[in-house]
């Protein structure tokens, strides 16, 4: 149905030209799913966008022997003809359901608009179609929800709306660009199931772009592995995943966290309690209603949280978005106050009144692009905590900063650079170095690897495991990714809707989950 032969995309900029995609060829037929796998910057999205005229030219330059869609040469079409195909016969869904719908339009209108653009039917018929599409993607009570705005839907529901919108025009090919990356694991499982369902019903061809190999393995028939714009390996999914030929594919597969190969070598059996959280509650007060009838609504985000962190262990904290895990970490680091309850640190109440108390608990954040001040060099950034806590004197400052860089696996020559000159993984290492600069006892890592590519993720996890072993660092590791937690942590806490539903030894929780929620989480992990 779609036949692409040696597609290349180049970008010409002031600093010279770069090749985003080189010599990509594939075919896809009705009812097939093609998975395109690669890390960020591998050209997997650009290749699909370029076929549909979504890459601005210039600076882009697209070349191909042929891009043939049911007899139509896509690259030779003008904008008007291309618009008819794009969104009509070839639809797309995107990564972030929070930003890909127009917040000012009712969702029904958005779907109806898409239908009316591509099909010659009147508004009432289009509305009937739109409602049918909403029903097909599993939105309950579609007639009523037709008039709702995007903000009235949750993330998973919005992705369903996006899919409904893409399907409403009866496409032959659906391009799904990281459609589940921004979603929680249980929602991800539902969306993948939905995609498989509609594919069967409509005999749809799906191009599934993702960095997550487990997800691709779950859905794809054929797989293309890309690195830096070049196709590394291509073939049937089964073959690629069971017998990878190329080193890069092997590296990718090895980087997937494997619970059987624990990153920490020694078993942890310390009963010395470092942090003791007891009966912790947190609620926010919101005011609702018009100003003459204001009422205060109490919203509980944390309910009766009790747990211990033992000295030297890595404790995993697992939960989906909205489970309150970030609120909890902010309370432990003193960035938020709890409504009630107590946190004892080393047997005494945890307070952050003095600098000495402050430095004991440090943070590593999720987004390495947002967690470093763009206007400070790496040296300044690392020197700041060292000077503030008087850990070293001025003359030894540079030596100490260089030591920190080496400790997290970076070269000491680069300390005069600014954060933007580093890649995501390197920045995350710098952020870890900054946390270590304070010489903390407890390190709280809030989703430290979820913004990173899978090979980088594996490196950072190894670094964290190493540091905890070498320095006897206690770590609270917060994540939504259960397989990462399983491979790194000694014990795990599972949170749902502000409550701890299960806690215990990592292996036993994963092998024999007791609580229903934990079971559903573990079942939702794409099996590898």
């Amino acid at each position, binding site marked *: 149905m779609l036949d692409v032969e040696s597609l290349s995309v180049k970008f010409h900029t002031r600093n010279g030209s770069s090749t985003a995609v080189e010599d990509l060829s594939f075919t896809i037929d009705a009812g097939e799913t093609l998975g395109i796998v690669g890390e960020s910057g591998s050209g997997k999205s650009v290749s699909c966008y370029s076929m549909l005229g979504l890459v601005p030219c210039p600076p882009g330059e697209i070349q191909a022997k042929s891009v043939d869609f049911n007899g139509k040469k896509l690259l030779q079409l003008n904008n008007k003809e291309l618009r008819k195909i794009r969104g009509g016969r070839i639809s797309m869904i995107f990564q972030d359901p929070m930003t890909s719908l127009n917040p000012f339009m009712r969702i029904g209108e958005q779907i109806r608009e898409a239908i009316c653009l591509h099909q010659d039917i009147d508004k009432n018929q289009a509305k009937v179609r739109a409602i049918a599409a909403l029903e097909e993607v599993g939105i309950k009570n579609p007639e009523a929800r037709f008039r709702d705005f995007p903000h009235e839907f949750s993330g998973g529901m919005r992705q369903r709306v996006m899919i409904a919108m893409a399907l409403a025009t009866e496409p032959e090919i659906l391009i799904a660009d990281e459609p589940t990356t921004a979603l929680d694991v249980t929602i991800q499982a539902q969306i993948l199931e939905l995609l498989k369902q509609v594919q069967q019903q409509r005999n749809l061809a799906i191009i599934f772009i993702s960095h997550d190999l487990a997800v691709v393995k779950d859905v794809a028939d054929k797989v293309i592995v890309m690195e830096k714009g070049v196709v590394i390996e291509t073939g049937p999914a089964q073959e690629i995943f069971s017998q990878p030929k190329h080193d890069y594919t092997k590296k990718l597969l090895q980087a997937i966290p494997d619970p059987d190969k624990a990153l920490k070598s020694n078993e942890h059996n310390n009963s010395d309690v470092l942090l003791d959280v007891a009966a912790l509650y947190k609620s926010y007060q919101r005011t609702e209603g018009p100003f003459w009838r204001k009422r205060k609504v109490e919203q509980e985000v944390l309910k009766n949280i009790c747990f211990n962190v033992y000295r030297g262990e890595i404790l995993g904290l697992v939960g989906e978005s909205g489970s309150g895990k970030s609120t909890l970490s902010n309370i432990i*680091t003193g*960035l938020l106050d709890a409504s009630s309850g107590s946190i004892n640190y080393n047997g005494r109440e945890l307070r*952050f009144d003095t*600098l000495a108390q*402050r*430095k004991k*608990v*440090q*943070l590593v*954040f*999720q*987004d390495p692009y*947002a*967690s*470093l*001040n*763009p*206007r*400070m*060099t790496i*040296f300044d950034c690392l020197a*700041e*905590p060292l000077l*503030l*806590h008087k850990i070293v004197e001025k003359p030894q400052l540079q030596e100490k900063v260089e030591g920190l860089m080496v400790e997290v696996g970076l070269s000491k*020559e680069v300390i*005069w*650079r*600014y954060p*933007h*000159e580093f890649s995501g993984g390197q920045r995350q290492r710098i*952020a870890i170095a*900054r946390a270590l600069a*304070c010489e903390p006892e407890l390190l709280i890592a809030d989703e430290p690897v979820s913004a990173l590519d899978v090979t980088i993720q594996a490196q950072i996890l190894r670094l964290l495991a190493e540091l905890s072993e070498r320095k006897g660092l206690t770590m609270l590791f917060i994540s939504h990714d259960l397989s990462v937690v399983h491979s790194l942590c000694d014990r795990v806490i599972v949170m749902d809707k502000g409550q701890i539903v299960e806690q215990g030894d990592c292996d036993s929780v994963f092998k024999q989950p007791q609580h229903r929620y934990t079971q559903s989480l573990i079942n939702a992990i794409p099996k590898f």
Partner: protein
Amino acid sequence: MSTDIKIQGNSLFSDALRRLKKNKLAMAGAAFLLVLTIISILTPWIAPYSYETQDLYLGATPPSAEHWLGTDVLGRDQLTRIMYGSRISLMVGVIATSVALLIGVLWGTIAGFAGGRVDSIMMRIVDVLYALPFSIFIILLTVVFGRSMLLLFLAIGAVEWLTMARIIRGQVLSIKSQEYVTAARAIGLPPWRIISRYLIPNALGPIIVYTTLTIPSVILLESFLSFLGLGIQPPQSSWGSLISYGVETMEEYPWLLIFPGLILSLTLFSLNFLGDGLRDALDPKASKD
């Protein structure tokens, strides 16, 4: 990179200066402003004529060998009057803008950083001052304090900082929620260091752009205030008053509008180029070297 490590990157500003020097347009703007400043400082000694001596027989003459930029209706040398005018205008521009900058940036950062009740009280004060009609405010000031140049600066500064404070507060609110600020708080950095090292440097872009926009508007505001009787009085001159006078006689004596207008436009261009250059130079991401 490796040999001169010690010298490099000691501060944002030495880096910025190096980058700024590469920007030709910005350097041209800076050079023009520098020359203008030197001339206006030296004006009492180098001006070709007196700014107040009238020659009613001469009247308004177009540019000539004796009077390079012509004379006005009262026969006063236009070049001299522009030179004296630039003393007033540049001073007003710089001082009033500095006042606005200082108050506005501090007010905005503190309000944005503190948040909550402090923020709403501080911003309501800004709203109230905004709502006050400007001319009434100025007239009140004149009635209470009488006329003086100092009051002129204060009055302009007191009005211009409001917008600055609002812009900065918005910036700070968004910067405050960045993770690097949270990281700074987790390290234990005191608030004033967070403000000076994290918030203000990252809000520099909008601050500089708005400053370059404020200076010209302040220069024009001065002519309006002079018209109300605050600030400078004839026979003293400023660019603003020369322009407003030039507009009245535009049809008969166009040079009385063209030359002050030209010098004001050139100043504004230079300011904008310099401002743009500064903004880029202060952003480490803007250029790789």
